[in-house]
């Protein structure tokens, strides 16, 4: 009933016709708005991608709670704490399992061109769970032999064609920290801002590769609790009962802790947000230019409409609708190119840059705001339309 009414009341789509009868102008407008949109998609995508990348490994941990040293500031500067604390944590009635993890950067030698590069190495007891991946347990079995490592196939190419060689059945051996190791499996973790690549090994091998590490010291303690127990509660009571040389937090806040480091202690957030703001401003200027010249060009026609009896409000509506149409027409190509460029970024940098609904809608509203704001400023020009001047 209501729709029928609207159909009945509808008028000539003047805004649409004004725009589409000038193909060149609208093409320029769409190109400009899309460019601004793409810029925002890229900048914000990179920013969020970098933040997400800093926790790729964190997210895969099979844990409810995490113990770290209070001196640890981020994944690139982890401090050790006594492994005994993890054993003490077992005393809590809700805790059902723990895994001690060593976490440090070691030098990896590329077996193809023999150059070395810093890689993030994780050491753990292979009999205990580490990652949520279902296949991981089988691969971890192989680490029970000394000198075996699992290599992350999402690591940057500079570490050598390890995954290819391994999958083709070749025996892959190289040096880590100056000691010979053999790749006994492939995992998929993903590089982060701090680490270009990852490898997983047993604690025994880890300590062998990095002899400076004190025997009883670990960097991360993973704690699993009974199903249905109140995690925040366990965190509180463990923090109370354990000495102050460890800090207990839920896995979620551990992830936030890491992201927060990159957000607040580095300039990434500022740089990329500024980049997105530049895109926004460029877009505003372009849309304003287009709408302003459109209104100026059609000023006599607007004046004629006013003389015919159209009121200023309905003409302002035409300009507003032009802004709205431009925002939709500019957003769609921006979104599609955004998707395309994200895929390109993923394949070339292996950063987890994904199109999220939040970002897609934030940018949509930014573009809408940009177009409507510019339309609002361009409307001022309409006040110059004087119907008395057209006779």
């Amino acid at each position: 009933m209501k729709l029928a009414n609207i159909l009945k009341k509808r008028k000539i789509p003047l805004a649409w016709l004004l725009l589409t009868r000038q193909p060149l102008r609208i093409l320029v407008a769409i190109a400009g708005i899309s460019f601004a949109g793409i810029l925002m998609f890229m900048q914000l995508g990179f920013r969020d991608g970098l933040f997400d990348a800093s926790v790729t490994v964190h997210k895969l941990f099979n844990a409810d709670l995490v113990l770290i040293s209070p001196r640890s500031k981020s994944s690139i500067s982890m401090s050790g704490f006594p492994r005994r604390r993890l054993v003490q944590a077992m005393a809590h009635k809700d805790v059902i399992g723990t895994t001690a993890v060593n976490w440090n950067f070691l030098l990896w030698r590329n077996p193809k061109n023999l150059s070395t590069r810093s890689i993030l190495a994780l050491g753990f007891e292979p009999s205990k769970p580490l990652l949520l991946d279902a296949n991981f347990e089988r691969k971890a079995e192989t680490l029970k032999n000394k000198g075996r490592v699992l290599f992350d196939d999402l690591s940057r190419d500079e570490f050598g064609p390890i995954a290819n060689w391994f999958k083709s059945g070749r025996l892959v051996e190289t040096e880590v920290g100056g000691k010979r190791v053999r790749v006994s499996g492939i995992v998929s973790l993903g590089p982060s801002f701090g680490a270009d690549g990852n490898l997983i090994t047993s604690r025994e091998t880890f300590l062998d590769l990095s002899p400076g590490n004190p025997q009883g010291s670990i960097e991360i303690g993973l704690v699993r609790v009974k199903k249905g127990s109140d995690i925040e509660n366990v965190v509180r009571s463990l923090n109370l009962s354990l000495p102050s040389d460890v800090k207990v937090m839920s896995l979620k806040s551990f992830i936030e802790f890491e992201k927060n480091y990159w957000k607040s202690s580095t300039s990434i957030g500022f740089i990329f947000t500024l980049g997105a703001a530049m895109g926004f401003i460029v877009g505003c200027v372009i849309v304003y230019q287009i709408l302003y010249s459109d209104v100026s060009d059609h000023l006599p026609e607007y004046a004629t409409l006013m003389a015919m009896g159209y009121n200023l409000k309905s003409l302002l509506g035409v300009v507003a609708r032009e802004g709205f149409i431009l925002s939709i027409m500019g957003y769609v190509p921006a979104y599609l190119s955004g998707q395309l460029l994200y895929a390109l970024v993923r394949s070339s940098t292996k950063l987890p840059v994904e199109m999220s609904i939040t970002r897609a809608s934030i940018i949509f509203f930014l573009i809408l705001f940009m177009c409507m704001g510019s339309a609002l400023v361009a409307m001022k020009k309409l006040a110059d339309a004087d119907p008395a001047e057209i006779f």
Partner: protein
Amino acid sequence: MINSCTKTLEISSLNHWYGQGEMRRHVLRSISMQISPGEVVLLTGPSGCGKTTLLTLIGALRKVQNGDVRVFGKQLYGACRKTRQNLRKNIGMIFQGHNLLRCLSAEQNVQMGADLLNDFSYKARRAQSREWLRAVGLEDHMSKLPQDLSGGQKQRVAIARALAAKPRLLLADEPTSALDSSTGREIVDLLKKLALEQACSVLMVTHDPRILDVADRLLQMEDGQLVPTV
């Protein structure tokens, strides 16, 4: 409600000035005139004598500074913008230039006039626009843009647009000035015929001596004053 027995237009002792202070110029001097419903009145006079100014005042496009202007019985002196705007919907205007919207086809241009009628459905308004274009003899050019039409055709579209809003007063400012004589004649005849079918009064400003005979009444203006005609 506007009383139907009142005059379409009543003007008494209308004065108008342009400019401020030293530069102030008296362009209309105590004009008084009337137009009855269905009357066709032609206004002639040398250029610069204030004809167009008078037209814009009647068309509610300018503020009345001094004197009485009643259109359909409504006082325009001191009328607010909204009143003038609403009044304009009942006044059709045809300009010297055609003033069609360049981005709209002939049919859409006419519909911009018809769209002012709120109580008709989209379909009805569309049908009316087509009807008007047929009436002005442009049924074969409905979807053409103004740039593809000849001068006479454009002026016909402008007439159709002005009449599509069902005005009760039609103001035309030299509608034939851009046309050759035979086309001009056709246009004026058409204008008169269609206006009378609608019981719409016409006030036309013209220089063109060849079309004076369509008028019921002739008014002459000189130096901002109406000159009594024989």
